[in-house]
């Protein structure tokens, strides 16, 4: 039944609030599936791990401040540098981006939650418990001590007795469960939960970054899981996967580890680069230059990233010919990065930059990114790498990459989205201070590392003799490290002060273009009272940029009959069903906790505990948790049956059509992953006119109707969308309507409507077509 809601704001808001709000009390705290809460938890936890990893680094820097320092024993130092690496790379760098993405995705997409809210909660709890699991080694005095890269056979029981490396192997396997679940959730959310009209070419670059990172995670993480599992088997069950003496080979570890490890670098920088790509336009006051290039660069970096791992092991004695391939790939991957850099530069050049704190961090990031990039290129040359590898030059390089490309964008993102998360702005004054302290401290700390490396200082040494020319650079590095840490402290001060008494932000303090700024600050539990129909890449700038079609937020689907959001098609973002979302539950926590028990059992060799704990994962469905997490996501109603209320416009069944609905009854949503990579980023109107005509199916009506039920022609939408041409022809037909064949000379911008074309549903209020709404989903956006 279609219900048209009266245009008052409070009634639906109150009702939605009742539906979506997390219960107060302990159940709400432990059972919430609100992506905003989970995202903030991710951020706080990740930053907490960053502080721990930072303290470890500072202790190491004191030890290395001068030659022959005796603060730490070699054992302690080795544990510290290992834990520093593991903490920063696994427990800070990726989770912090998951935090931003979790908080932001549904907001950026105009949705009400992630696709699998309980899986989302589950992945957070697993992350937290995996971190606790790893740091259980601290009170036991058995922290991992073989480096975050943990080269076999040094990690084998013969050379590493004790629980240290068991903690390492198990904690990482444990964590990969979280990361995998999160990655799957991001991919499906992006593919299925975008607001109607938000075609794949309209998503913010950050979503491209996270999408690429998530897809790469799903491919890369199994290598780590396998590597760590084999290590555990070697250690506990006497197998010989890495034991050269009995038919294994230690280089197997290196391949497995870096097959995971190098894509991981891109996994922890691509979303951060995306943050910058989305931030700069806000502060430069113009849309990103070369959106398509940057989006393609992001995806291609993720793909090429799988072909470079051998550059970590150029010194291992591999054949030169095979190494040359990886050297070339490592150089090729520079190009997408260069594209992104010059897109950013052009955006700043053509825009009118406002020197706010997020912009400062973004600009600083560009410099550091380029510095980290060029030193990376230096190590891609095989012969030169023989000198550079495993020296402090590489340490300098990787910190420029990881801090420059991860921490600086995270800081920029923190200043940018803090008002959205809390409703208050961070202090600009402290922000500027923080930027300059961090920027100067960072360069003071990490640039000299390159020099130390060029002077021949190897990595991972707990001490060094004086007299090799390494003393001064190391002292400067230590000073810079403390300076950088002071910058992080300033952020803590700023957050603490601003959270309590910062300037009230308002909904859109930066006048930013993306959908999250259309929500309240902080957003209501249901995010959007009405699911908007998106008309461009910058929905909130449509008017200023004089777009022909304007995203209107006061019209759209209401979906107020339970926890519901709208499911759309992967590429075009056409609405196809109403998704009923699961509510709060303790099962995700319970499942994560039982895994924790299971992994502790594996650690202790208590096999029945291990078995009970880890068996809970496949057994979960019978206990109800898995079913709730994984299965109840799909609509219980056929989309055509329950027509969601919306404000204005025709009801949803006209949007999705009965055929479409029938095809989707009782089955999972089709997710053709390959379609991701089809060249759909360009507007078909940019094709030569001849080609456009060629794309239109023969005998197509002169003005193909835009209503989706007519676009999903025989074979249904899933079959049709597997043939790429269907969409292309539908796309091509739209501009042709108004530009090629229509007798009216006026463009759609002037409000012309083709007579044979029914009013497209989304932006029409109460059935009255708005002039701008003749635009179709696919449109040139820049």
């Amino acid at each position: 039944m279609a219900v048209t809601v009266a245009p008052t704001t409070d009634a639906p808001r109150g009702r939605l609030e009742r539906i979506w709000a997390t219960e107060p009390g302990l159940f709400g705290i432990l059972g919430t599936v609100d992506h905003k809460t989970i995202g903030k938890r991710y951020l706080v936890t990740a930053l907490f791990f960053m502080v721990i990893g930072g303290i470890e680094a500072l202790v190491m820097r004191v030890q290395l401040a001068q030659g022959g320092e005796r603060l730490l024993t070699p054992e302690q130092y080795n544990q510290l540098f290992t834990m520093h690496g593991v903490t920063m790379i696994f427990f800070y760098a990726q989770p912090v981006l998951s935090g931003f993405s979790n908080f932001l995705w549904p907001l950026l997409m105009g949705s009400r939650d992630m696709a699998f809210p309980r899986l989302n909660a589950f992945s957070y709890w697993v992350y937290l418990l995996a971190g606790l699991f790893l740091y259980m080694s601290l009170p036991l005095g058995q922290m991992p001590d073989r480096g975050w890269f943990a080269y076999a056979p040094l990690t084998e029981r013969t050379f590493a007795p004790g629980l240290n490396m068991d903690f390492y192997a198990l904690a990482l396997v444990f964590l990969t469960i979280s990361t995998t679940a999160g990655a799957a959730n991001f991919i499906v959310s992006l593919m299925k939960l975008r607001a109607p009209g938000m075609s794949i070419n309209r998503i913010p670059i950050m979503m491209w970054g996270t999408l690429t990172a998530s897809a790469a995670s799903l491919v890369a993480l199994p290598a780590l899981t396998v590597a760590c599992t084999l290590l555990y088997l070697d250690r506990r069950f006497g197998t010989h996967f890495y034991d050269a003496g009995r038919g294994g080979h230690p280089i197997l570890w290196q391949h497995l580890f870096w097959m995971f490890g190098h894509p991981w670098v891109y996994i922890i920088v691509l979303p951060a680069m995306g943050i910058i790509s989305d931030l700069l336009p806000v502060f430069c006051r113009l849309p990103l230059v070369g959106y398509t290039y940057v989006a393609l660069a992001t995806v291609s970096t993720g793909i090429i990233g799988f072909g470079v791992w051998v550059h970590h092991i150029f010194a291992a004695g591999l054949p030169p010919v095979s190494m040359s391939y990886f050297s070339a790939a490592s150089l090729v991957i520079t190009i997408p990065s260069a594209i992104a850099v010059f897109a950013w530069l052009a955006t700043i050049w053509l825009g009118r930059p406002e020197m706010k704190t997020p912009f400062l961090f973004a600009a600083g990031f560009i410099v550091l990114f380029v510095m980290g990039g060029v030193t990376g290129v230096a190590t891609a040359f095989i012969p030169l790498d023989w000198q550079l590898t495993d020296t402090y030059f590489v340490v300098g390089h990787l910190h420029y990459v990881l801090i420059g490309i991860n921490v600086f964008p995270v800081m920029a993102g923190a200043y940018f989205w803090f008002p959205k998360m809390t409703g208050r702005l961070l202090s600009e004054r402290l922000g500027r201070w923080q930027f300059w302290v961090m920027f100067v401290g960072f360069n003071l700390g990490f640039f000299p590392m390159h020099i130390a490396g060029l002077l021949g200082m190897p990595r991972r040494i707990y001490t060094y003799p004086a007299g090799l020319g390494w003393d001064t650079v190391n002292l400067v590095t230590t000073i810079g490290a403390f300076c950088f840490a002071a910058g992080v402290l300033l952020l803590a001060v700023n957050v603490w002060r601003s959270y309590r008494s910062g300037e009230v932000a308002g909904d859109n303090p930066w006048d930013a273009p993306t959908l999250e700024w259309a929500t309240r600050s902080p957003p209501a539990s249901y995010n959007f009272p009405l699911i908007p129909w998106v008309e461009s890449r910058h929905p909130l700038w449509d008017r200023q940029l004089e777009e022909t079609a304007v995203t209107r937020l006061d019209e759209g689907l209401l979906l107020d009959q339970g926890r519901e959001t709208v499911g759309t098609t992967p590429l075009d973002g056409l609405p196809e069903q109403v998704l009923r979302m699961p509510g709060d539950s303790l099962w995700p926590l319970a499942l994560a906790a039982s895994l924790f028990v299971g992994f502790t059992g594996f650690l202790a060799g208590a096999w029945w505990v291990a078995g009970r704990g880890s068996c809970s994962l496949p057994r979960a469905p019978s206990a109800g948790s898995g079913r709730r997490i994984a299965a109840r996501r799909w609509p219980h109603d056929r989309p055509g049956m329950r027509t969601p209320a919306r404000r204005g416009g025709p009801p949803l069944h006209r949007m999705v059509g009965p055929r479409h609905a029938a095809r989707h009854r009782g089955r999972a949503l089709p997710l053709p992953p390959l379609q991701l990579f089809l060249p759909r980023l360009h507007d078909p109107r940019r094709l030569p006119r001849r080609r456009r005509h060629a794309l239109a199916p023969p005998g197509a009506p002169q003005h193909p109707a835009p209503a989706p039920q007519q676009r999903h022609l025989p074979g249904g939408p899933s079959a049709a969308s597997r043939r790429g041409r269907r969409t292309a022809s539908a796309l091509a037909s739209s501009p042709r309507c108004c530009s090629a064949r229509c007798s009216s000379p006026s463009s759609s911008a002037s409000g012309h409507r083709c007579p044979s074309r029914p009013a497209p549903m989304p932006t029409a209020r109460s059935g009255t077509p708005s002039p701008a709404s003749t635009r179709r989903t696919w449109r040139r956006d820049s």
Partner: protein
Amino acid sequence: MIPARRLGLLLLVAAPGCAGPRNYLGATGGPIAGKLAGFGWVVLGVALAVVVAVTGLLVAAIARHRHEPEAGGEPRRRGRGLGWIHWGGMIIPTVILVLLFFQSLGLLEQLAAAPRARVTIRLTSHRWWWDATYLAQDGRTLIPTANVLHIPAGEPVRLELETADVIHSFWIPALAGKTDLVPGQHNATWIQADTPGTYGGQCGEYCGQQHANMMLTVIAEPRAEYERWLAAEAAPAVEPAGGAAAEGAAVFAGRACAGCHTIRGTMARGRVGPDLTHLARRPTLAAGLLANSPANLATWIAAPQAVKPGAQMPHVPLPADELQALLAYLQSLQ
């Protein structure tokens, strides 16, 4: 236990023992490192130019708006700007990278294959020292030594790399880049020192607790001197005529020492630790950690775990007189 300060001092004293600077872009000792340094400067020069150019563009892009009355304002489109991406992001970097890549391939070809060498050394790494075996010119006799390699200057020397336990990496910065020593794998590399001198290096791959103190020294000398050294090294130890040294020999054989160390010409045939046949001629102790002086030798034997925590050399309690005798014996091993 030795007080920390004294030990720190010891480590400082040890510095001369670790030979000269490890700056591989500066004064290099041979053709391999020389070519690498030349290429390295090219790459670093290009890198610096790129950083300067991009930073300059960034500063200019920000600065060009400083005279505008107000930053920000309403968002506006202003040109497409794709030229930036085409030129800066694609064309220019591609040209630079292709040129450098082919140069690096040329270098790789020159350096990857070892030329024919008259001297071959089998280098076996242990936690945390280097075991070197020279293949003598007759091709059969094997001459073991440890932690210090003597090579003839001006000619290539082939190194066969093996490891006894975990992965290590051979690296003499002023002579050659790194090659890993991997269990179950036979790697080889070559070095050449054109200038006679002492070249320091250390293990390049993290190998556990004492990775920091696994130094290797290469001494390049004219061919004649090298041959004299090799001949002397090949000879078995001279049995001490009597006195403290003879007592020390008895201590060495009777206590734990002989179980791990070899002294050729005696009954000591242990293979766990370094060959000590000509210990007194080596410039360093404990894989380059200490200079080889009587005081350091005494410290090292008396408290190896304090000098090099985690080292495989155990603490063997010796009465003072036995220690003195042992020291006298070891110092007689010329």
